[in-house]
């Protein structure tokens, strides 16, 4: 009986350990393969101290710093859109008929908006060109200055930046010859979390410029500082 219990404990421990330390798979990809463009469906959930949010939508990315994210309501109407073009950001709320526009560093310190500042850093997860396949390293980052990265099988599984921001990458698969993390989770020092699950990705296909251009006809354009009152 004791042996049975011991075996059960060992099995459970092994299962829990494997959940906690799920390794990046060994993938066959070109060492210099990077994501130039990405177009994908997404499932997103966000949890802050004040509120939670979950929904489906689209993500379009063009290297190095262009993002268009669309979140849909349960009935498919557009709930929210975010455009990032270099240092500029536009957040569109069609139901309220308003858009907030400005520089990323003008984003107020309200919950839920800070994640946008980190978007460029989060999207920068190219395979690491190093002779060491596994390990934790510190390196320069164009987005946040310096960052600490954890690498497994040449793929980034974790990054942390000054200020307590962390991002985890998982569910890697090769799409169009490029390794892509289909699961991205961001956490900050307040334990606020954004979880992004990427679905049906299309990698390195040409993107029309219109996809990255905010459509603001009929909307009231407000400065980002107004988001604090929202």
């Amino acid at each position, binding site marked *: 009986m004791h042996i049975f219990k011991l075996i059960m404990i060992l099995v459970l421990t092994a299962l829990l350990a494997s959940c906690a330390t799920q390794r990046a798979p060994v993938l066959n990809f070109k060492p210099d393969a990077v994501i130039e463009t990405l177009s994908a469906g997404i*499932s997103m959930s966000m949890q802050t101290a004040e509120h939670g949010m*979950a929904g489906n939508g689209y993500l379009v990315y063009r290297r190095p710093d262009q993002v268009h994210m669309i979140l849909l309501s349960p*009935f498919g109407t*557009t709930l929210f859109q975010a455009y990032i073009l270099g240092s500029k950001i536009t957040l569109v709320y069609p139901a309220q008929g308003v858009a907030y526009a400005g520089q990323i560093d003008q984003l107020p310190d309200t919950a839920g908006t800070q994640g946008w500042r980190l978007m460029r850093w989060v999207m920068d997860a190219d395979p690491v060109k190093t002779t060491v396949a596994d390990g934790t390293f510190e390196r320069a980052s164009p987005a946040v200055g310096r960052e600490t990265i954890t690498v497994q099988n040449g793929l980034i599984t974790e990054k942390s930046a000054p200020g307590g921001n962390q991002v985890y990458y998982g569910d890697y698969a090769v799409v169009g010859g490029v390794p892509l993390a289909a699961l991205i989770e961001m956490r900050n020092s307040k334990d606020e979390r954004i*979880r992004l699950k990427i679905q049906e990705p299309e990698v390195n296909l040409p993107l029309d410029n219109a*996809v990255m251009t905010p*459509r603001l006809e009929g909307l009231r354009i407000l400065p980002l500082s107004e988001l604090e009152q929202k």
Partner: protein
Amino acid sequence: MRKLSITFLILGICLAFPLASHARPVAALEALEILRKGFAETDDFTAEITQEKQLSIMKRVMKTQGIVRFKKPDLFMMEIKPPYASRLLLRDNIIEQSAGDGKGPKNRIILPPEQSLKQWFDKLAAPVTKLPEGVSLKADKTASVYTLQITPIKRGQVRDLLISFHNDGTIRRIVINEQNGDRSTLSFRKFKRNTGLTERDMLL
């Protein structure tokens, strides 16, 4: 040979036309009342849904499938299957929503009391005698299917809403056209009403 082909072509056209169904305009009030009556006689329903979202700026269409359940007086549930799995429960004026396997964080939105589900369905208890204000309505009928077009007079996010339904008020399709050119289509299949749903069928 050529004459024979032309004869067949004309014959084909003549045969085809009487079979084709034409949409004929009907009074919007009549269509609205059929839709209302269908809901008034429904205690609960389940249906399979297919949702298609077409963005005006992108070629790709996001297609999701799932089920909806409704139970009077105030419960509505929508469950979307993977890969875009999500669940939504509307209990009167409280929306609860979760993504993925449902183990993650839940989103909770409280609607103003005047937007509660029970309020809406209380309104549906009485026959429609006049058209609602703030919207323009047009309706037509093709065979046994009505299509009601609802257009908000004031410019907002939604340009118009099209609801297609049968004579008994069973909804076939809802199309939401947005001002930015995006379109969302909800198609209903296997619509079953008054199946005796309980609260346990409506858990998030």
